């Protein structure tokens, strides 16, 4: 199949035409294509893709190919264009993809026994900042504007506390609002004193040095956010979806758990509950991202 190159880093196709041990699947005569989004080093991700796609191919009964996209948006476009069958995705990009192209949630990641996490507002312990109101006129770093735990949910805490009128009014409350490019960068900016606060995942302080972790605390926490999700393009054969989902669920079994590290390192997967993402859909509407 021809692959559209728009907005995609075609780093390489990690083809995994492994000899399949499972029953071949008549409905899928071409390879199942998985889109991955790099978190750190795309080259490392390529190695991970090769390892996991080989295993998936043997479990599902069809060849599995993986490729790296430059970001969530490119992965969604790949699903829309039919260049990808399945993608790994944050909750917010998923609900946008669902609305735009009818993407289907298959699996949710599990961390520390829950398919959800929270966003927090972190500050330095010695900052004297004890409440959200103390951040009036101060600077804050978020991860990315299209990040649920690294922007939308933490910012909503300020709306909830009636400190800002709505998502568009953040600049009026804070001194400066930065998008640092990721949790680590936002947390580092806060820990180093470049900004007064950071909005990031509840686990983002683990990205700091052990010494820095002791120097930071959090002053507000969002409601639970459904964790990242594995989604399929609309129209993907139902049996293929089932086989893929069942194979991924076998990663929870002790003998397969070592392979989770090839997939962003969650503790496991559960079947996705579409209703679990209602809160994200509401949040996206509040921010004007969904109609």
């Amino acid at each position, binding site marked *: 199949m021809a692959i559209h190159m728009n907005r995609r880093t075609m780093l390489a196709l990690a083809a995994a035409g492994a000899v399949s041990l499972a029953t071949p699947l008549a409905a899928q005569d071409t390879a199942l294509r998985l889109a991955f989004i790099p978190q750190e080093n795309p080259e490392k991700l390529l190695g991970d893709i090769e390892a996991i796609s080989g295993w998936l191919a043997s479990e599902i009964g069809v060849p599995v190919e993986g490729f790296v996209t*430059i970001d969530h948006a490119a992965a969604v476009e790949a699903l829309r264009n039919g260049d990808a069958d399945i993608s790994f995705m944050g909750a917010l990009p998923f609900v946008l993809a669902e609305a735009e192209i009818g993407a289907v949630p298959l699996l949710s990641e599990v961390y520390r026994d829950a398919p959800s996490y929270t966003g927090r507002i972190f500050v330095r312990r010695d900052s004297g900042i004890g409440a959200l109101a103390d951040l009036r006129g101060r600077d804050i770093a978020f991860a990315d504007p299209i990040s649920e735990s690294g922007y939308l949910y933490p910012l909503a805490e300020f709306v909830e506390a009636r400190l800002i009128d709505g998502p568009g009014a953040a600049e009026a409350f804070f001194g400066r609002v930065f998008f640092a490019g990721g949790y*680590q960068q936002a947390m580092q900016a806060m820990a180093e004193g470049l900004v007064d606060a950071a909005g990031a995942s509840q686990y983002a302080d683990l990205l700091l040095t052990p010494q820095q972790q002791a120097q930071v605390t959090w002053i507000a926490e969002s409601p639970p956010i459904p964790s990242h999700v594995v989604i399929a393009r609309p129209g993907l054969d139902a049996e293929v979806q089932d086989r893929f989902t069942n194979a991924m669920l076998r990663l929870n079994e002790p003998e397969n758990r070592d392979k989770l590290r090839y997939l962003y390192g969650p503790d496991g997967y559960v079947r996705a509950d579409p209703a679990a993402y209602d809160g994200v859909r509401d949040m996206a509407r509040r921010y004007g991202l969904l109609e």
Partner: protein
Amino acid sequence: MIQKFLGAFIVALASALVLSGPVAATPAKEAPWLPEAAAYRLTLFLGNLEPLPWDDVGTAWAEPYRGSEFSVGALAWLDGNSDIGPAPLLDAITREDRQAVFAEATRLIARRIDEELDRAVMADDPARAQQAVRTARELYRSFADGIAAADPDASRRIGLAWLELNSSTGSAGVLGAGATPASRKTMEAAREVISLYLAENYLVDDFAPRRTLSALPETVVLSGRTIEVPPSLPPGFDIFDQDPLPRLVLNFEEQGIDETDLPLVAYGDMLFDSAQIFGNPAQGLGVACSTCHNRSDVNQRLFIPGASHQPGAIDVDGAFFNPIFNDRRDDPIDIPSLRGLRFTGPYGRDGRFASLRDFTRNVIVNEFGGDEPTPFMLDALLAYMLEFDFLPNSMLTPDGQLTEAAPEAARRGEAIFNTPFAALGDRSCSSCHVPDTNFLDRQAHDIGSVALAYDGARTGAMDTPTLLGTVYTAPYFHDGSLPTLAAVVDWFDESKSLGLTGAERADLTAYLETVGAADEPYEAFDAENTAFRLAFSELTTFASTLDTLLPQRDAKHILLLTDTVAADLSADASTMSNLAARPEVYALAQRLAEVGDAVRTDDWVAAETSWTAFKSEADAIEERAF
């Protein structure tokens, strides 16, 4: 982006710059380095060694650094990702011109940052711009610690510029939803802040001569100010505990005696885990006795570029840890186990120290540049280390005979082990590895395993090592040149012409593997019995010596303890599974730090009060400490 919180805390080296006060022995894992940034940092590190390992410098640029996530080295990476040619740098390396290598490498990295900044500003979509900013920033990490140490204002200004730059790249949203445009003007202004600083400090035509290679900015070097850059290890280092963690067998503990009732031993246990007893750079890096000797055994993964020739080995009298003790010989040794230490003298691979006390002082003062330890410190360290016992092995009796649990092949091997060979001067393996004295004879022998340093040298004798516990301490020989016990058997058979058949070699190997085995060689952890629980138990035990030291008003040793344990407790909290209990552990660490603060101001009442509170709070959170 939940994926980013991986099990381990992975952080940028630059972030270690905010460290202040006592340094904990809990090292932080680093974020991966870009290939050319890694090569640069390795060049700085290796360039400060005497004699300078030029081959290693060349390798640093040609090959991926140890543990790199990139499959190619810096040169290949540059070839595929940059228009900047490395020819001047390679020429300088060929000429072995240290100053020129520094200058060319520094300019190369600065140009790469500018190249990526150009790409960011020129990018036609936010994702590509952000990718270029991210790359530029990862390259800037090459210089970040030098700038932060020397020019905090510039460090802050540039830090804000990175934030500004990334924020102004805009966002593509998802299928148009949430898209925000880039602000070119802001991007260019922010990039200007970074590029101007690079031009003034890292892109200069003639760098001032460097006695020590570092990432310090040129303007600061020219000012003549003395700047201490916090010590760091280059990409590829590994000073983390081995996994699985060796089980520690302490004689008193096996007898049911509580360490808190042995304050001298407990204090020595603390010192064994304390980087404070060493000088810099070991102290600043958090290197302690236990870094190499995990739980009295070895650390098979320890590796420091330029000081290790392979994992589990280190040259402790090289240029890095204590230059005045540099013997200018590239002779790293395989880290020896300290199990059964009271039976294994003399000490040192060649048995150069008859006294464990002398050996220990040499490690502290000479090998790792620490201050002269007090008699109490040496007494405590020895009291602790003399409790190290061998791992119990149900296949062996206390006098070194095989039990019924031993396999048949080992019994056949035992006979070979005890057989005198003419080629060994009518001696047997057991002549030196005497079974009823813990498989050693406490003497040094030259078995031909050491390449002689000069004609007529008598430097090949090495102290006979015990065979107990050796299944878990591979590789073997003083330099770790033999990977397995089978390889050791082959070496003796071939070099001594013993004439063993294949079956006999297999039997002899089986015997060694039986003698060197253990019933429980490693610590067993589970959901609540975690490595942190073990650390918490140890650290609170160390602190218990305050019950002895506070009444004695022994300020020096109290402060050594509180500085070490408070910092370690706080740092170790980052490894907790029970994240909800972390704030309590931080508060507990603070309580111990308050003991130290009070002692520093001679306020003994406050010190006693904080200590009492510590004990009570430690008891209260013990169950949640996992």
